[in-house]
């Protein structure tokens, strides 16, 4: 047996823990190896000294100190139990888990509408509603096929309808203003959205539009149609003003009526492309385009125009399309970009 192996077993050898053959081998090695014998002696000495180490005395107040600690512990526990009294009723774990899960679900369900009513989700939700409504209505394209007479009758109905929901719209204003406020926070560059009309002009869905356009109009219109203009609440009021004015103007010319039908589609597309071109020329960019699911024709386009180019952009836009009055103007001076939403309509 080698010294390195013997060293490993010395400790157990001293304690008599080696058995049989191994014990004999170590014993034999120690008889002939001086170094390992020395190691053995050294370990034996340490073991002896450790066994004879002086014991320390127990302090006189040891037991009383323990009693004191126990009392202090109990006192604290009593206070704790008084303050946080546990329920005496024993509830099975499964029932408790089930109840907790139900409560969490209820809380989440109640909070969900709250989350959705603010921020971007509100914007998207309303946009979905609008698109849904648009699809149901299909006004711009359905009206293409109607005759002039039908249209005037429809116009009269719409005019009456405008007055009716005015009150509802006022109630909507508050809700929409709040949505706008939250969207403003999340979309700091959102700005006025004027309407654009292509030639020929088309009647609008007045009872629906105040809500959808209100989302996009942010700036203050030039003329104070509705009284005091605030940076927040103007949008809807400006739209209403537009509505009213548009109602007066919804008298398509014979020429425009002729242009209804087959000529509408190329004109809309043509206008859309020209508008996009103009946006880019003005140093702006197209944020999004809305296309009809059925026909694939453009419904609207959202863009942002550098503030300094906004007026010239409007001027150029007038050359290619009729823009409803009053013309929206930018009242804010701190924003670098004007966000616009341009909706394409045809009227026949």
């Amino acid at each position, binding site marked *: 047996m080698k010294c390195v192996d013997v060293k490993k077993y010395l400790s*157990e050898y001293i304690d008599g823990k080696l058995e049989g053959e191994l014990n004999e081998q170590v014993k034999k090695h120690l008889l002939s190896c001086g170094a390992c014998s020395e190691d053995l002696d*050294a370990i034996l000495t340490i073991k002896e000294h450790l066994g004879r180490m002086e014991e320390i005395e127990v302090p006189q107040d040891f037991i009383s100190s323990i009693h004191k600690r126990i009392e202090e*512990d109990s006192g604290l526990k009593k206070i704790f139990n008084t303050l946080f009294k546990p329920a005496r009723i024993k509830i099975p774990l499964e029932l408790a888990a089930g109840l907790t899960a139900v409560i969490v679900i209820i809380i989440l369900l109640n909070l969900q509408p709250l989350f959705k009513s603010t921020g971007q989700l509100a914007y998207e939700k309303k946009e979905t509603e609008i698109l849904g409504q648009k699809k149901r209505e299909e006004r711009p394209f359905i009206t293409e096929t109607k005759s002039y007479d039908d249209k005037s009758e429809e116009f009269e109905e719409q005019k009456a309808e405008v007055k009716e929901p005015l009150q509802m719209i006022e109630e909507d204003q508050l809700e929409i203003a709040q949505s706008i406020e939250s969207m403003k926070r999340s979309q700091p560059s959102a700005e006025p959205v004027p309407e654009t009309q292509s030639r020929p002009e088309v009647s609008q869905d007045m009872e629906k539009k105040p809500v959808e356009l209100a989302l996009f109009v942010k700036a203050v219109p030039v003329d104070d149609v509705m009284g005091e203009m605030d940076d927040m609440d103007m949008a809807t009021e400006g739209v209403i003003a537009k509505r009213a004015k548009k109602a007066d103007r919804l008298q398509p010319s014979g020429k425009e009526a002729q242009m209804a039908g087959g000529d509408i589609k190329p004109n809309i597309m043509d206008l859309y492309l020209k508008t996009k071109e103009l946006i880019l020329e003005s140093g702006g960019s197209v944020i999004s385009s809305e296309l009809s699911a059925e026909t694939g024709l453009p419904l609207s386009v959202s863009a942002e125009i550098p503030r300094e180019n906004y007026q010239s952009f409007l001027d150029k836009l007038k050359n290619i399309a009729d823009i409803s009055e009053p013309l929206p103007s930018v009242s804010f001076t701190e924003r670098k970009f004007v966000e616009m939403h341009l909706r394409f309509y045809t009227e026949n």
Partner: protein
Amino acid sequence: MNKKESNTKSEHCADTDLIAAFLKGDMISFDRLVLKYQKRIINLCYRLLGDYDEANDTAQETFVKVYRSLKNFRFQASFSTWIYRIAVNTCKNKLGSFNYRFHKKMVRLNGGHQSEGGAFITQLNGGSTPPLNELIKKEREATIQRAIDTLSKHQKTVLILRDIEGHSYEEIARITGYTLGTVRSRLARAREELKKKIKRDM
């Protein structure tokens, strides 16, 4: 081993009787248990922690834990093993804490073994100058304790339980939760380390 009380069947019976009486509300039985094990426990704590005040505090803490946990005591197990386990674990927790390690460094700077609790050293001769052999013995013990302090907590636990407290390998395994093989190897390493350090210092 003159220090270790043999864990005979009679001792075990005596312990369980005291525990049973305590659980029925007899506080004196608890005090009897304390009196029986206090010296062993405080010395174990002293050798593990290397400080008198810490040893006193930890030993008291051990008995308070015993008091609180006796209602959960399984009568099949040995009370001796059980209380040693509590003491060892309480000491190991302290050994692992930052505050303790910092405190130990401060004590070393002061020259070691100094405490407000009244060093046991001065009690031996009533205040007069102790004889040379006593001083030599004290110096040797201080050297050994310093060497023990440098061991890892696992190594020193096994060493103290075996060579100071006199427990068997199997009992050490039960107290610490180590396997027998681990007990053997850690003890061998601890003795080897101690031999090297003491040889250097003496």
